[in-house]
């Protein structure tokens, strides 16, 4: 397992990571957190990989919704 996945952080840092990934930070918080990431490789790796993972999950959610819509449409034709 990559070392940055094994590290544990203070809940405040975890909240910062979540808010950054979910794009829920204001401008000042964002700049401060990006400054922190410049100096901490593990937090940066965790955050950037989490952003990638969130995008993949969003993709999966859309694909599932499309598949479900097509299934319901097909069912409506056969009803």
């Amino acid at each position, binding site marked *: 397992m990559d070392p940055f996945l094994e590290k544990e952080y203070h809940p405040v840092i975890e909240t910062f990571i979540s808010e950054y990934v979910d794009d829920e930070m204001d401008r000042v918080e964002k700049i401060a957190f990006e400054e922190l990431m410049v100096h901490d490789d593990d937090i940066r790796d965790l955050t950037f*990989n989490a952003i990638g993972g969130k995008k993949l999950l969003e993709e999966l959610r859309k*694909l599932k919704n499309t598949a479900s819509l097509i299934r319901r449409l097909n069912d409506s034709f056969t009803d």
Partner: protein
Amino acid sequence: MDSFTATSVKNYNDEDLMEYFQEGKELAFNELVHRYQVRLHNFLFRYTKDHQDCEDLVQETFLRVHKSKHSYERIAKFSTWMYTIALNLAKSLYKKKQRMYKISIHKDESDPDDRELVLEDERILQDDALHEKLCMEKLEKALMELPQEFREVVMLRDLQQLSYEEVTEITGVPMGTVKSRINRGRAQLQLLLKNYVQMGTNAE
């Protein structure tokens, strides 16, 4: 509350419907089933990987909702309450199946007539549909590779789009732990699919 009619049923939120159902309006329950059966099925599929099990669990969840309607209190969102029931049922099934796997019957190697039956997949898909299906399969496979405690929370947050508070409520895990697991679950999923994503990017 105003008068409840079949035509206006779609205008009510889940919690209102649940209240009407508690007062004996079956139509309200039917509307809740209509709203959640597909989402619940998708949610449960990632636990069971079996559509038949999902069908059974969805049915069982709604049966429990029906039977325990008076135990629901409006302080909780209806969806949170229902997902908690579904999750508990899925966990029970998982445990039951694990016990069942221990007494599986293997192919008899000494019997020359006992052979594996291979069926061809007759479903032929168009290129786009095939690509989407492959993407979906790849993503679902990676999701299944995540540790259970990571998978559970990223599914609730990113696929069911529940808030962190709702995920905390459903899982019974503290908020800090939920966030930490979601951060790592997302990151690990990205790492699992790194080569696949890069390959897809290069090909474009």
